[in-house]
């Protein structure tokens, strides 16, 4: 039976209307509702299902973030993970971290926790990078399968279906491997109150980035954050000829 590590991220809740700060330096985060990244929930659900199928013996959830990320980790534990690892960085440091630095931390955690499978969401809804899973695999020199639609573990390999433009691609990869999940692989369970209460007893290890050998000094400077331009109103035309001439004028055809 394998040990699964799954990464989770605390992000602004998906249903919140995002507001840009007046000075354009970032997005308003104070007093805004945060929750686990939806794709991370899907990754945790997949890990828990592996345990329910008796393929995985232990699931270690990890997160990189400020002290509030402990709640996100507790949600993962409530969904069925066995223990947690919390890499402490403050909010300002977290905002300046890039996928490369996160990947280095994730790779080190996968090594120290002796994971056989590393699961993640395909992207986080705040950064929309979608880079962490692939980078972590490269750092670990492990095979990777991203945007998974299905996962079937076969001992020392796994058969996966990936969501690609135009359909599905079936791959077989050797394990240990890094896997990132897409939307349709499963429907995650809700972390209900009784499970949240039970999760308080589960062990969480506190770690510093320096312990993982990663420098969190900023390497990326965000110059400006702005809202997308307001969509212009449409125009109704009388007939097809007018439509074609207007499209030609606009250089569209």
């Amino acid at each position, binding site marked *: 039976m394998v040990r699964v590590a799954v990464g989770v991220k605390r992000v602004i809740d*998906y*249903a919140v209307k995002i507001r840009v700060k007046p000075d354009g330096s970032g997005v308003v985060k104070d007093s805004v509702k945060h*929750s686990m990244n*939806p*794709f991370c929930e899907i990754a945790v659900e997949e890990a828990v299902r592996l345990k329910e199928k008796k393929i995985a013996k232990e699931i270690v959830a990890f997160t990189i973030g400020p002290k509030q990320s402990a709640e996100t980790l507790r949600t993962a534990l409530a969904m069925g993970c066995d223990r947690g690892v919390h890499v402490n960085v403050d909010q300002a440091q977290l905002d300046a971290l890039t996928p490369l630095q996160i990947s280095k931390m994730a790779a080190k955690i996968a090594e120290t926790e002796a994971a056989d499978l590393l699961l993640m969401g395909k*992207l986080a*809804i705040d950064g929309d990078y979608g880079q962490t899973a692939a980078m972590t695999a490269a750092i670990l020199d492990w095979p990777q399968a991203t945007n998974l639609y299905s996962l079937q573990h076969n001992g020392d390999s796994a058969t996966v279906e990936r*969501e*690609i*433009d*135009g*359909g*599905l691609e079936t791959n077989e990869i050797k394990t240990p491997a890094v896997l990132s999940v897409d*939307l349709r692989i499963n*429907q*995650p369970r*809700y972390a*209900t*109150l*009784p499970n*949240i209460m039970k999760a308080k007893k589960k062990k969480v290890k506190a770690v510093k980035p320096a312990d993982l050998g990663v420098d969190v000094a900023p390497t990326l400077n965000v110059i400006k954050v702005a809202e997308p331009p307001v969509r212009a109103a449409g125009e109704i035309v009388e007939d097809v000829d007018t439509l074609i001439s207007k499209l030609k004028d606009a250089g569209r055809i």
Partner: protein
Amino acid sequence: MASRVRVLELYKRMLWLGQDWHQGQAHFTKSLSNAFRKNKYETSAEKIEKLIFHAEFVEKEVLALYQLKKYRSMKNRYGDHGSYAVECQRIMEAARADV
């Protein structure tokens, strides 16, 4: 009484669900507490059983709503590459075959 414990646990579980309610947690909590308070002095075991069943039904409905809403939002935002793209491809190929 066994039903008192059940009702209290049910109430706490449902309170917890309020955090994701689209009209805000305060709105949810108000509706929830009113609904429970209305039947506070109910004594018939049969009626209590029916009310608990109804509350658990609402609990399941709320959970289903949350899951569906999240799924649909993610699907709309991050695209539906599979079937739609294949459909378009088929239509394009059929159109080209006609020419």
